[in-house]
């Protein structure tokens, strides 16, 4: 039991389960999943489907944060890629042509790679602080997205493009399959090869890993490129789901949600150790929180308040200074009230993930 509680995924998973269960009180049919018209339906499926873009962005963010950086530009990249793909599709004569959609997708993802490489270049080669380096693209990126859409909302009517974010393949929503595939690939690459360890070592101490013979610049550059690509895929999913591209609002505040997901998942913002499974749980947790707020009838305007609360609590629990102060105080105090088994259990519960 103790090892279970101490596992670093225990608290995120416990919070996720608690949130899901609390939904049951309001919607008894919450956990039912059914096949209708050959498509999977159900609240759980919806959570994963709408959470898929966030999972993608958060995956890329995990790698960047693991190298000790941060990528604030993902929201803008989401907007740019959605805008470019929709613009390309709206320009072609037959919007339903599969080849045309593939070209649009390839163009958008190519641009995402390029934007990621730009961030990586600024951080790894020029040596600008990551927050600031990616801030540039965050500011200018919204302008770029507006430039592509010409300040309008581009609407497309293309069934092959609709598949990416809103379609189904083998009865499962296609977005879920994409998210699954990318997650599996990320786990495979980072945990079955030395790549994960190299990233962690760069995040732990970039200079030391360079001296140990690791191309730390190359690893950092790669992390930002992957983050850009992931944000690009998320941008395609989001714009395809609503069949339109909005340069101003697509992916707005996505960077914050992604950082939140990564932090909840137990990856330290200081860099070093990272957990891809944790990030996925964190992203699902945020999506469940949003869904719960909608289904329980709490005004959706308060979502941000809840998020603020969650960020603060998670960061406090992660902070060594906070733990030292609070737990030192806790140990001093029990002398006053009779210390019994109750005190021991609280001690156990308070152990952070």
């Amino acid at each position: 039991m103790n090892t279970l509680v101490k596992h670093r995924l225990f608290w995120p998973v416990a919070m996720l389960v608690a949130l899901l269960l609390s939904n049951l009180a309001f919607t008894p049919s919450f956990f039912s999943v059914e096949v209708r018209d050959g498509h999977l339906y159900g609240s759980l499926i919806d959570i994963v489907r709408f959470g898929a873009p966030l999972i993608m962005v958060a995956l890329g963010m995990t790698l960047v944060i693991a190298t000790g950086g941060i990528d604030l530009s993902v929201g803008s990249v989401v907007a740019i890629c959605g805008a470019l793909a929709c613009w390309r599709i709206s320009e072609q004569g037959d919007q339903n042509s599969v080849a045309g959609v593939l070209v649009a997708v390839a163009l958008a993802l190519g641009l995402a790679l390029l934007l990621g490489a730009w961030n990586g270049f600024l951080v790894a080669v020029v040596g600008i602080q990551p927050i600031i380096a990616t801030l540039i693209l965050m500011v200018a990126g919204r302008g770029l997205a507006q430039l592509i859409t010409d300040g309008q909302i581009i609407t497309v009517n293309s069934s092959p493009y609709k598949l990416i974010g809103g379609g189904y393949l083998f009865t499962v929503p296609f977005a879920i399959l994409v998210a699954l595939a990318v997650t599996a690939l990320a786990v495979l690459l980072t945990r079955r090869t030395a790549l994960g360890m190299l990233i962690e070592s760069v995040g732990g101490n970039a200079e030391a890993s360079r001296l140990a013979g690791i191309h730390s610049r190359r690893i950092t550059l790669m992390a930002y490129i992957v983050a850009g690509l992931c944000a690009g895929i998320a941008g395609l999913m989001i714009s395809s789901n609503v069949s339109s591209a909005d340069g101003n609002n697509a992916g707005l505040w996505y960077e914050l949600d992604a950082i939140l997901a990564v932090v909840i998942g137990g990856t330290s913002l200081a860099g070093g150790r990272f957990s891809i499974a944790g990030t996925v749980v964190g992203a699902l947790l945020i999506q469940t929180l949003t869904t719960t707020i909608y289904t329980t009838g709490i005004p959706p305007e308060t979502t941000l308040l809840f998020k603020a609360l969650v960020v603060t609590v998670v960061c406090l629990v992660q902070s060594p200074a906070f733990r030292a102060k609070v737990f030192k105080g806790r140990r001093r105090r029990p002398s006053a009230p009779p210390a019994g088994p109750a005190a021991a259990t609280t001690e156990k519960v308070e152990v952070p993930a």
Partner: protein
Amino acid sequence: MTTFAEVRSRLAGTRQRRYLPLYATLALLALMYGSGVVQYEAFSDPQVVLNVFIDNGFLLVVAVGMTFVILTGGIDLSVGAVVALTTMVSATLLEGQGWPAFAVLPLVLLMGATLGFGMGCIIHYFEIQPFIVTLAGMFLARGLCYTIGTSSITIDEPFWTTMAQSKVRFGDNFISPSVVIALVVVLVAAYVLAFTRLGRNTYAIGGNPRSAHLMGLPVARTRIGVYTISGFCSALGGVLLSFYMLSGNSLHAVGMELDAIAAVVIGGTLLTGGSGFVLGTVLGVLVLGIIQTLITFDGRLSSWWTKIVIGALLFAFILLQRLITPRKQ
């Protein structure tokens, strides 16, 4: 990369490197203003410059607060949300509850300062990175805005409308009372940074927090102080924005934190802290304002070019900062 390192070591060695970004900003400003005057006849009217102040008075106040935070090597992402919260709370209290202006003003200013104080305490005592704490503060403030209301609230309280409509005239030209308030804030901030103990401590912490601590400087008080100042300035900026807009709206000032950071960086304050001037920030705000004015005068370019140009300038100035800062060992 040898050339990059060479240029940097040469620049880093010069005495004047502290002022270099300031000169660069000044030159840029002169260049932009000059090109405006050459291209458009109406641009040479002094009122054009005064309008830049009128349209950006609130940004100036917010950016001054941000300068303090960035000088200590921190960052405050919550400013835009605090500005919006201030306009929203003021509007609700004035219109919905019928509070008098003299009660609302101190209350909202105190609210901003308290928010900043709280964030400063968390940043200092629990050693959490400033950007994540202020990010949470941003969520909190925006969330409170949305909880108060999602629609825009118009203010027609007499004091507010007087502040919005009266003009401080000199000759043919005029500025709004908000600009006067903003300039007073700038002067006070410049005095505090240059001549008081708080100012010197701010620079010292930005230069090297560890040595500041070893020297016995009050690191805790100063660091919490700068976030409190930033919170106060955001609230004051919010009040000025509500004078300007005569409304409270939870969607006011979205992305203003980026404008404020851009103004501070373009104004030559080092993001690593320890070097910079309030005057630079004023120049930075002017640069942003002139860009907007130029794009408006041009008429052909759409407003989103502002963002792209600001991004490009941010890049150029950050690169310049990299060139003039000595490599940390």
